Each structure stands twice: as C-alpha cells, then as structure tokens.
C-alpha cells in the first residue's frame, strides 16, 4: 500500500527521527488501540497512552487485562484492528518486530529468548545487522561493554548464557535491545523472576537509562512495590480498557490494587489457628541430583503434620525444585527415606502417590502441570483417569469428569468460555486455578505447592493463597515452595530456608524475622557458622 514517495520519506526519516529529543517530550503516542481476537474477545478496547522521553511509564493490570496484547501491538507482533501509533509525531505501522526495532522500539520478554549454549556477546549480536557477513567481534565487544557500563550493568560478556542467573539473563536482554538502538524500551514483567537484590540493582539501572531521555515502559502484573519505586506515571488496564492513569507520586499500593482488580484487595490474609495433628510426611536425609548430575539436595530432613504449612524459602536453584520432584517421585533420589502417613513410600510410583493422597502443583504449569492442547475436562482427567470414581473397568466417565470440571470452574472462579476449550487459551492465573482446583478436589492429605503464585496477578495470588490456607484448615499438610519471602511469612507455620541444597534451619513462623530469613537464603548465615 505504500507508494514510492512515502517510502522514500520513511527511509529519510529513519536516520534522524531520534535526534534532538527534549526530556518530557511525547515520544510514543498510542491512540485508540483496539484488538479483537477470534471468538470475540476484546483484548484491547480503545487504549490510549503516551510515553514521554526520560520517563518510566508503567502499565499495570491483571493477567488477561490486555497487557500482552498491547505490548505485542507496540512491538509489531500483532496488528491492531483499530488505532494509531505515533513515534515523535510520525504515524507508524509495524508489520513485524523488525519494523518496530527499526523505529527504535526495544522489547524485553518475560520468557527470555536467549540461546543457552552461546556467549552473552553472541546472543547480543544475534539478529543485529552487524552479525551479517564478517563480524567485527572485537569492535562489537567494546561497544557492548561500554554500553553495559554506562547503565551500570555488571555482566561478563564472554560467559555462556546457561551459566547466568535469571537476573543476569534479564540484563543481557536489556543490553541486547539497547545495542540494537532501542529508544523506547518495553519490559515485560521485568522483575518477576528476580531475587530482591537483583530487583534493586535492575531498578537502579532502569532509572539511569532515563537520563539518556529514553522512554521506558515496564509492564507489571502484581509487583506493586516495583511500580511505586520506579515509575513516573502509571496506566492501569482492566478487561482491555484503561481504567485510570495517574502520577505515581499520587498512588499507593492500595489504590493501585483496587483499581487493577476492581474491588478492594485485602493484603492481610486472615490465617485461622489450626491445631496441628498427626505427622503426614516425614523426610529423612533426602538427597537428589539436579538435571546436570550435580548433587542439588543434600541430606534434608523434616516433618509436616496435619494442618501445618511448611514454607520452603530460597532463591531459585538452591534445591527446592529438586526437593519437590524427589518428594513426588518425579526425580530419582540418591539417598534417604520418605514416610507418608507413617508408610514408607520412598520407592512408590507417582501414580501410587496420587492414590495415597499426595498432591503436587508444579511450578512449570504449561510444561508439566497441564497439557495445553487438551480441553479443561481432559486436563482434569490427569488426576482422575486411574480413579475408580471415573474409571469404570477401563472406560473413562467423561460425563462425570465434565461435571467435576464445571464444579472446579465454578468454585475456583475460572474465567473460561467452557470446559471444552483447550486449556492453552486460559490466562496464567486461570490455568493455575484449574491446576490447583484439580489437585485440591482430590482432598489430598499433603499438598506440595511449587511457586503457586509466581507470575500471578494480585487477585489470583490472593485466591491461590486462600485456597492453600483452606486446605490447611481442612487438616491437610502443605509444603509451600516460594521465592517470595512475604508470601512465606504470611502463610507458613514453619519456615525452612534453603541454601545450596541444604535446609539451613526450620523456624516457627511466629519467631521468624524477614531479615534473618533473607540472610539465610543468601548464605550469610552459613558463612557465619563456618567461620
């Protein structure tokens, strides 16, 4: 649809569109962005927002509020049905991310798209015009290093990506976008996988970027403190619409949460006192290796009784994941013993563990916890295909499974067109509700919840946490694995910080202090003891 004239102009404009930017000037102006998905879902309904140079403009919204759609439109991954995008007053249309990148838009995905076996530098150069033909690696290396230094990023650009922590990978993605000339940086839930320390560091760097009059747009779901800490302005989305736009200075956590969810959110979970009963699970000296064959879980012992929540705190990669899988029989163990209801289940199969009354909600919800191409009913069947209530002499009672699924949808308030749609169409929060609802519908004696609220929005997080508390009140034992110390502190009866595959201690929650636990999961405590 382009005639030669506009095409010529475009090329010319590319060169100097980003010259002479004044702080405070509107650099990105999206007007009336509307996107309707097949099936009639209105993901974006006339969304307007502006990003000014030198400003951090946060977009806040629950899962399913339309953030991802908006972001994909801004980055050229999707085309809007209606609406216009202006960059420095110039109307643009992105047919692909390539177009968006050319116009100075950079995007950092939540699920990092890096090649693990390649070095940081190679990943940064991948797709860069410089990587065509003969690469001047030396020159590129200097440029990248200078760029990183400018914004205070500490990365070893020769390291392989698989060696990096999640926080470092995030930095690599940001530097990659900047190196491609991004002037407006879109960050998708930038801190969701980071530890508190890494988060602080990242926020500092993001702030330093605005000095160069870059526009930064972080998309954030549930980390309200992050929004308050870094943004200048915040736009709140709900059900595809802008519900409010305000200066961050005028906002509080309560105000933001209420506007985002559409109802008041109670941050204080009311935990009922429950008298602990018999031991449900007793673990003795459990050891296991990680996927690389390195011992990742070392001689861990603990007991959880009826009506108790054991919170396992720790930074990712300190053995919590291996612990959860070893407990559920998904990972071979190197030593130790597991007693469930005083019965030795160390060698029991996964199916036997389900039948005995164990339940597990994995952190990998789309890869392990559900089958994306199966309907909700078929996903619920994952926990019932062996159950005599739904398996009559080898025939599955799909009618009964349908009723059960409808019941879960109802009780867990799952937003879905119905039980027959593929579960991949559900948002993250709704997916987790189905998984948790399915597991809890078995009334397990033990629930192992691996990062149950990670990546969920405020409303879904609250819901999931309440369900875990409800299971506890019904005398289930709960093992809660979380990287969020606030979550651990507010839900647990006992807290076990993990560091390098060992349980540093097991502390009654009433006596636990956040700073002490924080130090323990960072290994400080360990070093003190050793010295």
């Amino acid at each position: 649809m382009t005639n030669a004239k506009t095409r010529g102009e475009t090329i010319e404009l590319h060169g100097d569109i980003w010259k002479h930017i004044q702080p405070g000037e509107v650099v990105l102006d999206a007007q009336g962005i509307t996107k309707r998905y097949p099936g009639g879902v209105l993901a974006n309904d006339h969304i307007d927002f502006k990003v000014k140079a030198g400003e951090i403009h946060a977009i806040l919204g629950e899962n399913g509020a339309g953030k991802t759609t908006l972001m994909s439109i801004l980055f050229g991954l999707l085309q809007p049905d209606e609406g216009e995008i202006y960059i420095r007053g110039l109307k643009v249309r992105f047919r692909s991310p390539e177009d968006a990148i050319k116009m100075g838009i950079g995007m950092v995905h939540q699920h990092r798209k890096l090649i693990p076996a390649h070095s940081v530098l190679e990943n940064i150069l991948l797709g860069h015009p410089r990587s065509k033909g003969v690469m001047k690696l030396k020159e590129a290396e200097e440029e990248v290093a200078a760029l990183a230094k400018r914004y205070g990023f500490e990365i070893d650009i020769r390291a392989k990506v698989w060696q990096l922590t999640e926080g470092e990978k995030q930095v690599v993605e940001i530097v990659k976008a900047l190196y491609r000339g991004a002037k407006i940086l879109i960050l998708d839930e930038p801190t969701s996988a980071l530890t508190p320390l890494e988060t602080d560091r990242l926020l500092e760097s993001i702030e330093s970027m605005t000095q160069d009059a870059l526009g930064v747009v972080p998309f954030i779901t549930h980390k309200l403190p992050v929004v308050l800490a870094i943004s200048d302005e915040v736009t709140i989305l709900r059900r595809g619409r802008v519900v409010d736009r305000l200066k961050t200075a005028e906002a509080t956590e309560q105000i933001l949460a209420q506007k985002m969810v559409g109802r008041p959110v109670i941050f204080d979970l009311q935990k009922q006192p429950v008298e602990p009963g018999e031991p449900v699970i007793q673990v003795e000296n459990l050891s296991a290796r990680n996927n690389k064959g390195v011992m990742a879980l070392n001689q861990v012992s603990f007991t959880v009784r009826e009506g108790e929540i054991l919170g396992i705190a720790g930074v990712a990669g300190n053995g919590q994941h291996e612990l959860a899988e070893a407990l559920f029989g998904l990972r071979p163990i190197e030593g130790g013993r597991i007693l469930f209801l005083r019965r030795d289940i160390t060698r029991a199969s996964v199916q036997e563990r389900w039948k005995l009354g164990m339940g597990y909600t994995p952190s990998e919800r789309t890869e392990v916890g559900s089958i994306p191409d199966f309907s909700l009913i078929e996903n619920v069947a994952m926990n019932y295909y062996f159950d005599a209530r739904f398996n009559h002499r080898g025939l599955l009672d799909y009618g009964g499974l349908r009723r059960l699924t409808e019941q879960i949808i109802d009780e867990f308030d799952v937003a879905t067109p119905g039980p027959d749609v593929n579960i991949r169409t559900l948002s993250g929060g709704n997916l987790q509700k189905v998984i948790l609802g399915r597991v809890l519908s078995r009334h397990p004696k033990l629930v192992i919840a691996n990062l149950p609220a990670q990546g969920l929005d405020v409303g879904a997080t609250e819901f999931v946490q309440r369900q875990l508390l409800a299971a506890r009140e019904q005398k289930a034992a709960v093992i809660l694995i979380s990287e969020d110390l606030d979550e651990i502190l507010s839900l647990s009866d006992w807290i076990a910080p993990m560091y390098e595959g060992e349980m540093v201690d097991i502390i009654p929650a009433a006596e636990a202090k956040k700073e002490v636990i924080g130090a323990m999961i960072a290994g400080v405590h360990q070093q003190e003891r050793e010295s």
Partner: protein
Amino acid sequence: MTLGGYQVRLQRRVALPGWKAALFSILAVIFGLVLFSIIFLQAGQDPLEIYKQIFSYAFFNSYGLHLTINRFIFLALASFAFIIPAQAGLWNIGMPGQLYLGALAAFGVVYFAGGKSGDLALSAPIIILLMLAASMLAGGAYGAIAGFLKGKWGVNEIVVTMMLNFIAFYLVAFMIKDGGPFMNLGGRGESFELPEAARAPMTGGFPITLWIVFILTILLQVLFSRMSLGYQIRAFGKSPLAARYAGIKPFVIAVLVFTLGGAIAGLAGYHYFAAVPGVYKIARTYGYFGDLSFYGIICGLISLGNPIAALFIALLFGGLSIGGRYAQGKLHLGFGVDYALMGMLMISLVAFQFFYNYQILITKKERALDVDVSD
C-alpha cells in the same frame, strides 16, 4: 496482505467441527485432481476420460473393486499400525518388518502343522485362528523391541524400527528363497503355497480381514475417545512430562503402543499373503508390499490419528493405486503416472490441513495515509 482495496487476513480457528474437516479433505482431493489434470492436458490426454477410467475401474468394476478392497484392507491395517504409536507421539516406521514377521509366523503355523507338503494335522478353523494369532504375536513382539528400547533407554524408535525392517526383510529372504525352510518346491524364490484349508475364509466375496478392519476401527475409536488407556496414550503423546507428573508410566506406554501397532501390522502381513485370493504365498515381490505399508504413515498423518478418517483415506489410496495402474496400462500413459497422481493428492490433502487451523478473512480496507516502515 491487501488485494485491490480488500484486506486479506489469516485468523486462527478456535474450533473446527468434524464435518468441516471432512469437507476440506474432499475439496483437497478435488483440488489435487484438477491440478493434476494440467499434466494430463500437457501430455495431450483428456483428464476427464482418465479419471473416469481410474474411478470406474477402482470402485465400479467388479474385478477392480476386489483388488481395491484388498489393498484398502492392507492400507487400513498399516495406517492403524502407525496411528497407535503416533497418538503416543512415537513414530512407527517398522510396519514392513512387523508385517514380514507376521506373515512368517502365519506360514510357520502351517509349516509346523505339516501344511507345506499338503495334509494339515489340524482342522481348518483352528489352523486359521492359530495363523491369525501367530501373525499378531510375531508382529507385536517385533514392534515391542522398539517400544522396549524407547521406554527403557530412550533409544530413537525411528532408527530402531527402520533397522529392524532390514533384518526382517532378509529373514524372509532366508526363509523363502532357495534352501530356506519355507521354500516353494518349484524353487521360484517364493514360499510354499497355502493348502486350501489354511486360506482365510471369504464372506460376500471379500476375505474376513475386511471385517477385522471394521472391528479394529471401532475398537480404536473406543480406545482413544472413551478408555482410560487411550487417554493415557494421548496424554503421553501431547506432553510426556505432564503425563509423567500425572502418574502415567512412560515405559508401559511405549511398549504397549508398539506392541499393539506391531500386532496390527502383523495382521497386514497375514492379509496380503494368506487372505488375498490368488496369492496365498509369500510372493517373490514381498518387498513391494513392505514399501506399500509406508502409505500407512501417510494415511495416518492425513487422518490426524483418527481411525475412521484413516479408513476413508486408505480406501481412496487403495482405489487410486489400483485404478491408476489400470488406466496407465489401458490408455498408454507414462510410467509412474499412478504414483505421481497419488503423490499430488497427498500433497494437496496435507496442504489443505492449513485450513484446519486458519481461516481467511477478507475485509474492505480503509485507506489511510500512513508511513510504511517496512522498506
């Protein structure tokens, strides 16, 4: 994309009703036939006449129809042998090997019952049942090797089944060629002929294997849509990790699907060498039937693992291969035209599956003065 003021867009489908899927397949066949008629026109032939010859011979000529049905039975069994492991996400490329083993086992029963020289030690119904059972057992056991290696150590099932095909091919050669135990007394490089009593009974002019195909279709349909086991196979096929988490045992699934698939391939071997009138021996050209069983892969893939759909696809290709060969001879068409036509239809069928996932939307485009940045 825009065409003359209209915007053409692709949109992902949310759901596809079964009748639409069938409609697209029919359209795909018509499209393929139309496309191929260009080649006929190029060669100065009348495509309508050729298609008339092909289809009337394959489906409306009594002699041709029998050939078509026999080939259909074989292709349907080969498709099922592929579909069962495919539902578990595993590739059975070993139908030839499994069907050779099935055929050898069936002939082995006759051999040990003294049938090579003429008189059978057992009554006809018993010998036929034993032959059917032996062919399934042998094919199943041969398939199970791949399943076991896959389930136990994760050995690639494609490589294993392919290699097993070679072993089985030469095993048949050893058994039926000069000096082999199953050697034809005439020494024509083929096996001994089955005595009258060991040949599969006919019902309504077609061998009983036709009924076996229909029964298997229903059983497979029930297995995958109603049974817990079928659910477990499908769950494993969609996501092995999630299946393991749900307590489904990967080893059991791998061994099971290959045993079932192999057993059905074994039946295909039984069918062609012990049930098709006029054959009743392991022919010198047995390798041709091994290769033919690879069409089961294509039927299985086109039908997307649906046993009922596979039935229709198998019937189509069974008829085309018979009718195409006939028309080629009768109208003096070029060598290999029948295969080229089948290939064209396969490509067309696979290409039309695009419409299973996408629909094309055409909307009037509003013209806007916008700056295009895709230079």
